[in-house]
C-alpha cells in the first residue's frame, strides 16, 4: 500500500484559497471549521511564500498518541483518521498537533468542545465507506472511490500534491532540478521525520 502524504510546493502556491473552498464544499464542513487553510509568510515582502496546510497525517501521529480514548487509527494508506463516536472532545490532540489541524465545533469552555473535526485525506471515517453517516460526520470518502483528495486534485498551479509519498516526492524533486530552486517540503520534517533532498 502507498504511504499517503501531502506536499505543498510553496514556490507555486498563488494563495488562491481554492483548496480551502474545495474542501469545505466537498465535505460540507461546518461554519467556523477549516480543515485546510493557506498561510502566507513574509506577506508583501520580498521572498513571500504561501503554504497550504491541513492535517499532514503524521508518522507516529502526536494526536493519536495523546488521545485518552484511543479514537484515532491509521489506515493501510497511512492516513490518520478518527472516530467521532469515540471522541470525547478533551482537546488533547489539539495541544499536541504541530499543524493546528484538530478543530472543534464549539468554543470549549467547561470542556464542551464537541466532537473534533479535521482533514481526513478525503478518506472518511470508521463508518461504512460512502454511507450517509460517514458523510455527515467526516465528509466524502474519495479514496474509497479511487480518487485523491480534492484540494490537490483541483489546485490550479499543481502546487498542492497529494498521494503516494514517494511519487509526489519524485515530482517535487524533478520540478526543483528543472527550475533550479525550491523552498522545501513544508512540514515534512515535523510530520514524517524526513525531508526531500533536492
Amino acid at each position: 500500500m502507498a504511504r499517503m502524504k501531502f506536499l505543498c510546493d510553496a514556490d507555486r502556491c498563488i494563495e488562491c484559497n481554492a483548496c480551502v473552498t474545495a474542501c469545505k464544499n466537498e465535505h460540507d464542513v461546518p461554519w467556523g471549521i477549516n480543515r485546510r487553510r493557506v498561510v502566507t509568510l513574509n506577506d508583501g515582502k520580498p521572498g513571500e511564500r504561501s503554504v497550504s496546510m491541513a492535517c499532514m497525517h503524521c508518522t507516529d501521529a502526536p494526536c493519536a498518541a495523546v488521545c485518552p480514548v484511543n479514537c484515532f487509527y491509521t489506515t493501510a494508506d497511512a492516513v490518520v483518521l478518527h472516530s467521532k463516536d469515540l471522541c470525547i472532545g478533551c482537546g488533547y490532540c489539539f495541544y499536541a498537533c504541530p499543524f493546528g489541524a484538530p478543530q472543534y465545533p464549539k468554543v470549549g469552555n467547561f470542556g464542551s468542545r464537541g466532537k473534533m473535526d479535521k482533514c481526513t485525506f478525503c478518506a472518511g471515517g470508521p463508518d461504512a465507506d460512502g454511507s450517509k453517516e460517514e458523510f455527515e460526520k467526516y465528509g466524502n470518502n474519495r479514496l474509497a472511490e479511487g480518487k485523491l483528495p480534492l484540494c490537490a486534485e483541483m489546485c490550479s498551479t499543481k502546487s498542492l500534491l497529494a498521494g503516494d509519498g514517494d511519487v509526489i516526492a519524485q515530482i517535487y524533486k524533478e520540478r526543483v532540478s528543472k527550475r533550479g530552486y525550491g523552498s522545501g517540503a513544508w512540514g515534512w520534517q515535523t510530520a514524517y521525520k524526513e525531508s526531500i533532498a533536492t
Partner: protein
Amino acid sequence: MAKLVAHMRVIAGAVALAFMIAMSAPVLAQQPGMVNPTADAVKEQQLLQQLKTIQGRGTIPDVRSYVLEHPVGRNWQQFHSVTLRWIGGIAIVGMLALLVVFYLARGMVRLESGRSGRKIVRFNGFERLVHWMTATCFIILAITGLNVTFGRPLFASTVGSEAFTTWAEWAKYAHNYLSFPFTIGVVLIFLMWIGGNIPNAVDVEWFKRGGGIVGHDHPPAYRFNGGQKAIYWIVVLGGGAVAITGYMLMFPFYGTTIDTMQYAQMIHAVVAMLFVAAMLGHIYIGTIGMEGAFEAMGEGTVDVNWAKEHHRLWLEDEVARSPKGARTQPAE
C-alpha cells in the same frame, strides 16, 4: 555633399546600434542565471530555529489558524505519553508500596495508654463538612484525572472502546464540574486552618523525633503536628496549583496560547500525581495507620488519651481555656 553627410549618419547610427547590441548581448544571455527567486524566500528550517513556530497571515477569520507549524507539540506528546506516565507511576505505585511495607513493619500506631472513655471535640461540624466535601471531590477528581493518563493503557482494550469512551466522557464532565466545589473547599481549608498551620520550632522537634510514626516516641504537638502542617500546605499550594492550571485548560484561549496550555497541562498533571501520592499517605494515617485518628474527622471527637499522646500541647491549651473540660464529654 549633403548626400555624403546623410550616408555618414546612417553608418554612424548603424555602428552605434551594433555597438549597443554587442554590449547588451552578454547581459541578456546572463539573465536566467542571475535571477534567483528563492534568494530572499523564507526557509522553513531557519524559521523553526529562530522562532520554534511558524506564523504568517491568512484570509479566514480564525486568526489562530495563521500558525503554520508548531513542532513542540511533538515534545508535549513525549511528555504525556512517556514522562508523565513514569512520574505518575513511580509516585503513586511507589507510595502504595511504601505504605504496604510500612504497615507490615510498623502496623497500626496503637493508643499506648488505652482509651480514657472521655472525649474532646477536635473538628466541629463545619470543619468536617468542608473536609469531606473537598475529600469527596478530590477522590473523584483523582480517579477521573488519572483516567486521562492511565485509563487508555490499563482499561480501554479490556472494557472495549465504546464502554470506555462513555465512561471517559462522564469522567471528563465530572472532572470539570467537581473542580468548583473542590476549589471552594481548598479556599475554605486555607482560611479555616491557617491559624494552626504556621510552621514553628515545635514542628522541627516533631520531625526530629520521627513524628511518633517512626519509632514509639510521642513528640509534643499543638492542634496540628508537623506532618499535618505538611499535608495542609500540600493541599493549599498543590490544590491552588491544580485549580489555576485546570481552569486555564477549561477556558481555552482566555489569555493562553497552545504553548501556555501545554505548560498548564504539564504542571497540572505532575502536581496532581504528587498530590495523589501525598493524599494516599494522608488517607493511610487517617484510617488504618493510627488507632483513634479517623474519629477526629468522622465523629469530630477524639479520646482524651489520643489527644494526650499525639497533640499534648493542643490538649493543654483546650483544657486551660475551659478548666472544667467543657468541650470534653464522657462517652455514653
